[in-house]
């Protein structure tokens, strides 16, 4: 069975810093045998914000018909879920926040309807990666983003301890990350570690 990777490039800026970080990760994974990678440009994915209607608490599905219809199954069947989002104004950018908020349907499934979100063979095996970049150089620049990102992974059964974070501050203009001393190395190492971990988990299935 191939390892399925679903990656969201959340930035409206194509080929910018957070997407470069994502591409470094995906380039390593792509060289591995038996992997299926899907990269989604959120800007083109037609994901509207959550309407806050709470209908999913009853219907077990979202009332909106948009890009999430296509993404829904991919989100719950992948082994590695990646979100790459830049920091705008001390939080993830609005487009990425809209995607996170649309995960409300999974939250309702899990906590209100108490139904499984992923199939039993994936339970406890899914891994998450959050990649982010920020123009500011402040140590706390990612603090507002992290709780939201935790929600994103948590409601689709990617455990906290199975989520890795690579967040690079002080990169603003397009291409700035290319001259960062460690970002590429860290991204590649993270990807290698992650793929090894998933292989290990899948090989040691009971």
């Amino acid at each position: 069975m191939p390892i399925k990777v679903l990656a969201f490039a959340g930035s409206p800026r194509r080929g910018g810093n957070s997407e470069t970080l994502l591409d470094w990760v995906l380039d390593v994974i792509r060289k591995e045998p038996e992997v299926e990678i899907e990269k989604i440009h959120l800007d083109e994915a037609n994901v509207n914000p959550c309407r806050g209607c709470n209908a999913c608490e009853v219907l077990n599905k979202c009332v909106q018909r948009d890009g999430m219809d296509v993404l829904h199954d991919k989100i719950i069947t992948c082994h590695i879920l990646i979100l790459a989002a830049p920091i705008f104004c001390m939080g993830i950018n609005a487009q990425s926040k809209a995607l996170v908020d649309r995960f409300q349907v999974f939250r309702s499934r899990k906590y209100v309807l108490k139904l499984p979100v992923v199939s039993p063979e994936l339970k406890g095996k899914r891994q998450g990666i959050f990649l982010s970049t920020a123009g500011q150089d402040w140590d706390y620049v990612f603090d507002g983003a992290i709780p939201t990102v935790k929600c994103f992974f948590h409601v689709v059964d990617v455990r906290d301890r199975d989520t890795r974070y690579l967040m690079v501050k002080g990169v603003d203009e397009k291409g700035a990350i290319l001259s960062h001393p460690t970002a590429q190395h860290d991204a590649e190492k993270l990807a290698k570690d992650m793929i090894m971990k998933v292989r290990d988990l899948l090989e040691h299935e009971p």
Partner: protein
Amino acid sequence: MPVKVLGISGSPHRHGNTEVLLDAFLAGVTEEGGEADKVILKDIEYSPCRGCNTCHKDGECIVKDQAIPLFDRILMMDCLAAASPIYSMGITAELKGLIDRAQYIWARKFILKTLYFTDDHVRSHKGIFISTAGLSWDNVFDAAFPAITAFFNTIGFEYYDNIIANEMDKYHGIRGHPTALKEAHAKGREVVRVLEALKRDVPDTD
């Protein structure tokens, strides 16, 4: 001149908990003689920030939509109440979408240095964050504060106070909350009194 107050409702949900809390605040404003108005973000046409950084060069946003006249209006106010429920530990994509668009004001202030707010200006412009959350966690608003802080700072408003209420699920909505609506109403009256006093002390020069 009466104290001008604008409430911005970032909820996709009309007349929900957050908007009702905002309404209580605005009713207090009116009662004290202030001039209160309300904008429903979901009803106006604006798109998220493109992250293109063009505004870093000329201080203008290339996206010409209703966000620009809204910012013009915000900058004319004495008090801004930014209201959003908490979704996935953050403000809604709607409010985040607007805040991210303030980047051109940020660029004028911090990059081009064509915009400067005096201390007196900041002191006499009050920003208030209004929010509700379903969960009871004490930290449920924490990840929202950095984006709100950054926003008020960008537009030259002092972050005056929060009007926040959690445990909406337990109270079955804001109307079941023992104190929140009364406090919001009182805060509306208070902020008008405070701003009136400031206007007397510091004649408006801008």
